[in-house]
């Protein structure tokens, strides 16, 4: 097995035989010409033919990859008509009495050189465009065949580099993947591969020896690796990954836009957990109904000093706007000694899980807390935000939090800054909060059960210590009964209850949670559709 790495331009896994696409070397011969007018006419005709071919390519590409990506072939036609380009070719023919192929070749080199020498990555790439159009004209002039077609079975295309015209000309049903030695993520080929959803790697350091033709290979577009003649284990692993990927795509196709509803008609909210605004795209791609847990820690951890109200406002506003009216639940700062930013200056602790963290820091340092709340309230006008407080253990804490948030709202009103009244909820992640959930339910708008911390506090098992794994029962009845209790207490006060920990994505427990009456499950974006699939297969009437 040989392994080569490159840069992935599109994820996905392809398994199949290699097909080498080597550029037929067009050796251009310089010939003396007597009748230069005739030669110029020959060039003009070849240029027109080339333009017609490009016009057809444009139409083909428009259907396959959309107008914006097809536009390059329109540009190519304009390049062929460019006054300087044509003048240069005709000048060389006339002045040197040489053949058109040679004049086109020299002109192409000169123009390509002009682009290559620019200090602009995008413009450097355009040298490839000049070469591409010129090679086409030379091919027509010398009656050469077009680019090599793939015959036989769909293959992994391995090439030094691919011109955009070559990429589009390929029969897409015969292409499993593109792998090139050169090329950049700016190249049209990369853009086209992405649009066509074909796994593609560029910049792969592999020697294109003829022996590679027909060899079995696997392209892992996620890892940016191609394995030539993979061993059994690699092949089996990647086959499995590929099946999972296909399953995911099947779910996407079948389940996107569908309701999270059981066979007997019970609907559940399925939201996504995110740890960065960058994840918003995955949330939308996986069709989540909202964001059930927006971990705001990254705002602090990615900063070298306390993030300002304005910085935070912009982040929350973006989340609210992107989710366009879907609920976005922002969990306030959940930092502790195990996960801290230097500027917080927290003491080292023996037992950070039970230390000064999350809401405890916020209540000790109301200035930090108020800045975050102000940002959240200001952003509330741009969508449907909710706020959630972590690590709650007592009724007194909740009352204090509510006082502070009331102060924040009062200050905003005084400053004539508008905001929406948003839902305020708490995380239920300590046994103490579970036991007094009947009292807490009277104070807040919703509960979200954090099963990771709840499990570790209930079983007294540190999840960071692998030696304790054999004592850890993820489905421990104690935790499940606690969840049941929280649901009942929430519903008695008519507030909704969700789960945002790992257990929420555990498909073995979905039925039990629904029977308990859980209203919302918040999971990683990639679990949204598998969970929807599970929910739709359940029948709670049985």
């Amino acid at each position, binding site marked *: 097995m040989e392994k080569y790495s490159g840069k992935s331009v599109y994820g996905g896994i392809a398994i199949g035989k290699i097909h080498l696409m080597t550029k037929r070397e067009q050796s251009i011969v310089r010939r003396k010409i007597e009748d230069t007018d005739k030669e110029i006419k020959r060039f003009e005709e070849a240029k027109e033919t080339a333009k017609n071919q490009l016009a057809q390519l444009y139409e083909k590409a428009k259907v396959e990859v959309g107008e914006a990506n097809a536009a390059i072939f329109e*540009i190519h036609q304009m390049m062929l008509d*460019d006054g*300087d380009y044509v003048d240069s070719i005709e000048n060389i023919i006339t002045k040197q009495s040489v053949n058109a192929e040679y004049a086109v070749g020299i002109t192409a080199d000169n123009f390509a050189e002009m682009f290559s020498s620019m200090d602009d990555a995008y413009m450097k790439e355009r040298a490839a465009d*000049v070469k591409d159009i010129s090679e086409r004209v030379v091919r027509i002039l010398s009656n050469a065949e077009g680019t090599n077609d793939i015959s036989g079975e769909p293959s992994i295309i391995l090439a030094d580099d691919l011109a955009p015209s070559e990429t589009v000309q390929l029969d897409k049903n015969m292409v499993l993947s593109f792998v090139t030695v050169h090329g950049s993520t700016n190249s049209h080929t990369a853009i086209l591969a992405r649009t066509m959803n074909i796994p593609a790697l560029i910049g792969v350091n592999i020697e294109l020896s003829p022996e590679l033709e027909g060899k079995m290979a696997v392209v892992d577009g996620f890892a940016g690796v191609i394995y030539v003649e993979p061993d059994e284990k690699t092949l089996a692993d990647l086959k499995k990954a590929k099946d999972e990927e296909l399953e995911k795509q099947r779910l996407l196709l079948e389940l996107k836009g569908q309701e999270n509803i059981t066979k007997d008609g019970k609907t559940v909210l399925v939201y996504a957990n995110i740890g960065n605004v960058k994840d918003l795209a995955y949330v939308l791609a996986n069709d989540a109904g909202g964001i059930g847990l927006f971990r705001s820690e990254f705002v602090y951890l990615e900063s070298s000093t306390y993030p300002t109200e304005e910085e935070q406002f912009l982040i929350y506003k973006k989340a609210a706007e992107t989710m366009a009216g879907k609920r976005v639940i922002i969990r306030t700062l959940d930092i502790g000694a195990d996960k801290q930013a230097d500027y917080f200056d927290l003491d080292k602790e023996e037992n950070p899980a039970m230390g000064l963290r999350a809401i405890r820091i916020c209540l000790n340092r109301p200035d930090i807390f108020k800045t975050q709340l102000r940002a959240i309230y200001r952003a509330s006008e741009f969508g449907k935000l909710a706020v959630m407080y972590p690590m709650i253990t007592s009724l007194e804490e909740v009352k204090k939090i509510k006082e502070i948030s009331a102060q924040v709202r009062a200050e905003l009103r005084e400053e004539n800054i508008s905001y929406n009244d948003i839902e305020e909820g708490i995380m239920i992640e300590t046994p103490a909060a579970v036991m007094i959930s009947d009292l807490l339910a009277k104070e807040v708008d919703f509960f979200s059960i954090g099963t990771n911390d709840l499990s570790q506090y209930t079983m007294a098992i540190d999840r960071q210590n692998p030696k304790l794994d054999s004592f850890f029962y993820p489905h421990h009845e104690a935790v499940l009964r606690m969840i049941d209790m929280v649901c009942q207490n929430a519903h008695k006060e008519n507030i909704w209850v969700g789960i945002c920990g790992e257990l929420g994505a555990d498909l073995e427990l979905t039925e039990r949670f629904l029977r308990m009456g859980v209203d919302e499950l918040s999971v990683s974006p990639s679990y949204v559709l598998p969970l929807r699939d599970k929910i739709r297969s359940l029948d709670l009437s049985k």
Partner: protein
Amino acid sequence: MKEFKYVITDPEGIHARPAGEFVKAAASFASDVKIAKEGKSVSAKKIFGVMGLAVKQGQEITVTVEGEDEEAAAAKLEEFLKANL
């Protein structure tokens, strides 16, 4: 002769696609159209020249139009730049 200046706002600068559209628009007029950046002037009717200027976001270009339809051409091209670049 008509002349106007314009600062490119498109984050990608004058890249291939708008360059092509600009050249197409310029070529539809009889007037001579030139586009200049930092003293370097090229014909706006030739795509290689326009792309060769490698105009980036924030840079200023000067467009000069000379000929029988210069009024209309200058107005149209300025409008194009504002809408696309």
